[in-house]
């Protein structure tokens, strides 16, 4: 008896070992890929951000020199200012528009699947194609100017992306249009996690729909708000494609569309200042990491409350 139990234990043990080995085998390639192309780059970028590093490699150890230079750098400050302004405008607009669309689509309406699909549509188009469309619509002889012109009764030929006073604002408008649909989807998923019992109770209490929304739905969407806010903030801080496309990579006119990532790209690829570009990346990473961590903490609180 005792021998049998021992062999059982033994086969059980080897079975466990086999399962573990197979498990490691199955995740080997994905893990290797994450280590080589995500975790190692993070460490490497942190390392070379302390060096003056060019095309041929290490030039000089500059310590915090790159970081000090960043904050004295006129162009970086311009890029930071543009990016923060962009984020400050786009995030609230995306959230408000996304939530409004989600609430409307969430009603028991005919054809709501159609409308949901329609609202999401701009989000799935290629950023390059959609920016090309925006360039056309907002060109000096584009649709927007034609509409303004016909309202005013005179020809209007403002080049929205061509003037430094409106270029960044035009990108803001473009991205509010294209990504609000994604925020709508996140809000819809959140709306669905609210139990219908709550609404039934509110209906029996005689609360109107406006009141029900502000007193019940809106507060219950708390985790959704945080989630959407963080996704939107992170996406906005990383704005690149549209700025690159509109300005041809230079961040013009007059650096009005220079963003942090565009600046990073230029210092890395065009100026081949790998160390300095990495320092810019680390600064952005710290900002994003802090915000994501903040979301985690706030979530924890929202959950336990």
């Amino acid at each position: 008896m005792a021998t049998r139990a021992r062999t059982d234990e033994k086969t059980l043990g080897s079975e466990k070992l086999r399962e573990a080995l197979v498990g490691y085998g199955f995740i080997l390639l994905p893990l290797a890929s994450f280590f080589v192309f995500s975790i190692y780059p993070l460490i490497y970028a942190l390392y070379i951000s302390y060096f003056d590093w060019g095309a041929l490699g290490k030039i000089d150890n500059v310590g915090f020199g790159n970081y000090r230079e960043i904050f004295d750098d006129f162009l970086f400050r311009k890029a930071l200012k543009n990016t923060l302004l962009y984020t400050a405008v786009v995030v609230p607009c995306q959230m408000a528009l996304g939530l409004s669309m989600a609430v409307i689509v969430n009603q028991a309406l005919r054809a709501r699947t159609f409308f949901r699909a329609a609202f999401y549509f701009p989000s799935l188009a290629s950023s390059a194609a959609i920016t090309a469309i925006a360039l056309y619509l907002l060109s000096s002889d584009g649709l927007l100017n034609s509409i303004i012109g016909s309202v005013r009764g005179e020809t209007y030929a403002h080049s929205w992306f061509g003037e430094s006073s409106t270029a960044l604002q035009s990108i803001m408008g473009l991205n509010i249009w294209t990504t609000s649909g994604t925020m709508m989807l996140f809000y819809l998923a959140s709306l669905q996690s609210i139990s219908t019992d709550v609404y039934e109770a509110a209906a029996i209490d005689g609360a109107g729909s406006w009141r029900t929304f502000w007193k019940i739905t809106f507060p219950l969407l708390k985790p959704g708000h945080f989630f959407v806010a963080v996704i939107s903030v992170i996406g906005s801080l990383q704005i690149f494609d549209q700025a690159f496309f509109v300005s041809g990579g230079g961040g013009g006119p007059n650096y009005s569309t220079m963003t942090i990532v565009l600046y990073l790209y230029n210092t890395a690829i065009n100026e081949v200042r790998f160390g300095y570009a990495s320092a810019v990346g680390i600064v952005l990473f710290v900002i994003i990491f802090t915000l994501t961590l903040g979301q985690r903490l706030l979530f924890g609180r929202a959950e336990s409350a």
Partner: protein
Amino acid sequence: MTTGDSESRLPPVPPVVAAEQLALEGETAAGTPPPPSLPGRERADTVRRILAYVGLILISILFFVPFLWSISTSLKSLPETAGFNFLPAHPSFRAYDSAITSFNFKRYFANSVFLATVVTMTNLFLSSLGGYAFARLRFPGRELLFMLVLGTLMIPNELRLVPIFQMLTDSPVFHLHLIGTYQGYFLINLVGATTLFLMRQYFLTIPKDYEEAAKLDGAGYFKTYRRVMLPLAGPALAAVTILTFQGTWNDFFWPLIIFLGDESKYTLPLGLFQFRTQYQTLWPQLMAASVIAIVPIALIYVFFQRYFIAGVTAAGVKG
């Protein structure tokens, strides 16, 4: 929420909600059923409904006019674009012809299809295999490694730019030169953490009975994965396919870094960029090219909307 060791630590945020909804057969993110109506409430309901419809139609117009306008322009001749006519006077596909033949859009299109197809296949295989292991197989450090995988989502692309650019220019150890090659692009896009997350979440929702039956039949882990788990994971695989295909098709950042300067490797977004910098006011051609870049994804969207929406919501874990 389904049960699972690490599940309690994840907040019920939209991605998790969506991954689970994918497992249900119904519509994803379809909406909350209406509250029961009370007598005397019908009038308020009607008003609310009318307001909702007005809102829907206004937003739809605002959202669609740009697309319709660009399609209309792509069918016009250049002189006609200066006008304000919504419908082209003499619609023709000349702009498409010229975009396809004179600007090499055929090549860009083929490159886009090729890149998106290969990346989708490697993602399907590796994320389902890895997702199965993370969901079902027990091995020390599983939860920690999974957290690590999710953690990589916080590392922004821009930060990876310099190290990956250097790595592809002259890889450590093997000294490969992969900048400007398709292989370089495939290598850095083998598998995404979001797709792995999506597959794992989905596998967690599948009852264990199926595997136990396979186990009694003496099936090994790989056979169980291939014969039992994969056939049950259809919706999640569909979501991963669509998500990865669309992401690669629309990708602007990495093709720009890897292929810039070598026109024969350009994908549609890079082709559009080149077009815009060189011939910027040939509006009918530019709009035709944009339409070509959008239509394939739009078609996939029309037919597989449900997986699209669940996939995007679940992929929101990216951030």
